[in-house]
């Protein structure tokens, strides 16, 4: 009887304003996923303050790791390898997780695996969708990223399209601030949109001439700000729900169109979504409708796995571990790390 030994990954994520640690078994089973969110601290400042985020990570990193092991019912001895996000993200924030992970790997002699944050978001889809395997397309949408990615195999990524300026989530935050909703903008616009008419105001949908899969949201953001300005100048009352709904419709239309066009062009039948904006209800509904019309199976993670979390890093780390990827003790934080690079 030679049963293959379970692979347990202890993973750490600290790229932005969440300190998180998880234990993931054999790449698909999340034994624990502890997230310490700092959002209340940053709300005071209207956005994430890198220095405050970094200080908070230092305060919480050990407790979060300890809790992740405890909740998983394992000890450090049971762990096969340590995975950690090393980019992209805020450099000071990343360095806390990277330094702690390296020290733990060094002290225990266990393998260390640096994981790309966006690859983690994509891999979040494997957690709840046991049938999902490459190849598939993934739309990654968050506060810092907007990518349309072709996942040809585990750990193999090709970027089909990306944003030329603002990330989708960034546009949500900026528009939310402009209409007085505050930070974080995504969930607030999603909610307020329920009361608004998405057809009330026509905002532009940008198309890039040289790459039809690329995105641009800064023009849309400016159009919203101009609209608000012109209303104020004319003394017209602004219907914030209509603005929110119309803006959101413009974003979801573009995200949906680009994704579906790429699917049709490449003849794929599986589309996944990832990142914080992937939990936007209107985007999910728009994408679901388009996928149903085109016989495409749509995948997306539960909201908890859409936000920054270490479980997704553990999943990505598992597939890198299987491939033989190992990082050295000189692993550094790479704030501008590109997808598919090492």
């Amino acid at each position, binding site marked *: 009887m030679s049963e293959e030994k379970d692979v347990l990954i202890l993973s750490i994520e600290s790229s932005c304003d969440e300190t998180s640690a998880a234990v993931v078994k054999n790449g698909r089973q999340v034994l624990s996923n502890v997230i310490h969110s700092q959002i209340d601290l940053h709300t*005071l*400042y209207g956005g994430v*303050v890198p*220095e*405050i985020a*970094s*200080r908070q*990570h*230092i*305060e919480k*990193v*050990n*407790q979060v*790791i*300890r809790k992740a092991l405890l909740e998983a019912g394992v000890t*450090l001895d049971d762990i096969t390898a340590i995975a950690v996000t090393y980019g992209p993200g805020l*450099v*000071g924030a990343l*360095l*806390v*997780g*990277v*330094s*702690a*992970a*390296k*020290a*733990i790997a*060094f*002290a*225990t002699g266990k393998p260390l695996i640096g994981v790309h944050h966006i690859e983690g978001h994509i891999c979040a889809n494997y957690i709840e969708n046991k049938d999902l395997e490459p190849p598939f397309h993934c739309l990654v949408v968050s506060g810092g990223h907007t990518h349309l990615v072709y996942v040809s195999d585990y750990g193999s990524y090709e970027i089909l399209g990306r944003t030329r300026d603002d990330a989708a989530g960034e546009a949500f935050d900026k528009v939310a601030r402009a209409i007085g909703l505050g930070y974080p903008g995504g969930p607030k616009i999603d909610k307020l949109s329920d009361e608004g008419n998405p057809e009330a105001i026509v905002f532009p949908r940008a198309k890039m001439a040289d790459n039809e899969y690329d995105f641009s949201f800064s023009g849309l953001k400016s159009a919203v700000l101009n609209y608000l300005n012109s209303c104020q100048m004319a003394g017209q009352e602004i219907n914030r729900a209509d603005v929110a709904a119309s803006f959101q419709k413009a974003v979801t239309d573009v995200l949906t169109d680009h994704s579906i066009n790429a699917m049709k062009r490449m003849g794929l039948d599986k589309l996944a979504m990832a990142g914080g904006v992937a939990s936007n209800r209107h985007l999910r509904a728009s994408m679901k409708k388009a996928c149903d019309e085109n016989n495409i199976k749509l995948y997306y993670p539960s909201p908890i796995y859409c936000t920054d979390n270490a479980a997704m890093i553990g999943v990505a780390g598992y597939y890198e571990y299987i491939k033989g990827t190992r990082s*050295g*003790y*000189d*692993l*550094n*934080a790479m704030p501008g790390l590109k997808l598919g690079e090492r």
Partner: protein
Amino acid sequence: MKILAIESSGLTASIAVADRDRLIAEYTIDYKKTHSQTLLPMLDEVRKMTELDLDTVDAIAISNGPGSFTGLRIGAATAKGLGFALDKPLIEVPTLEALAYNLVGTDKAVFPIMDARRNQVYTAGYTFVRNENEPSGYECVTLLAPTAIAIEELADMVSGEDREVVFTGDGCPVYKDVLDRMLSGRAHSYAPFTQSRQRAGSVALAAFSYFEKGLTVSADDSHPEYLRLSQAERELMEKKKADGEG
């Protein structure tokens, strides 16, 4: 009794392993690579060279600030990770006190100065008093607790000091001219380069004193002492103050 010491508060990265009466290894680099790339490979090298069994380390000493925010955190996260994995306590040594230990045994008053930018220095004042019970043979007495002040303010304080004064730290080359001018006619000197930068050996020596007094912290609770708020917090406080007064 063995201490592993980590120093990454400034430009130098430094690792030391020491028994109470013996420095087993010290590895110090003052080079442009980031601490993230140097610190752990250096520790790995020290471990291999001295065939160090990490389980035999009794405590991990960390130069705990003030200093470069990022540098302090790389050291802190490394020390916390080691403490967590090895189940060992941490010893938080104030960086300026560790710098003063570079000159342990001197009868002068030691004023470490670190360039804190924004026209300030991180500084403190210490003097050493003979004490057989101390691991170093001297008790480190605080004359001025760690603080962030203008160099002129420090020079004013120092002119009132009876003892001869010696400065150490990376603030010396930056502020030597100002100090020489303000302290002209008053005996003062600057430590040579073997004693003028952060060294983990000095962190370890100071740490033994802390350890023997029972002054350790858990790896979970340890965090750097920055001596300064983040810029965003400072601005928010100033704004609140202005609003309150306005």
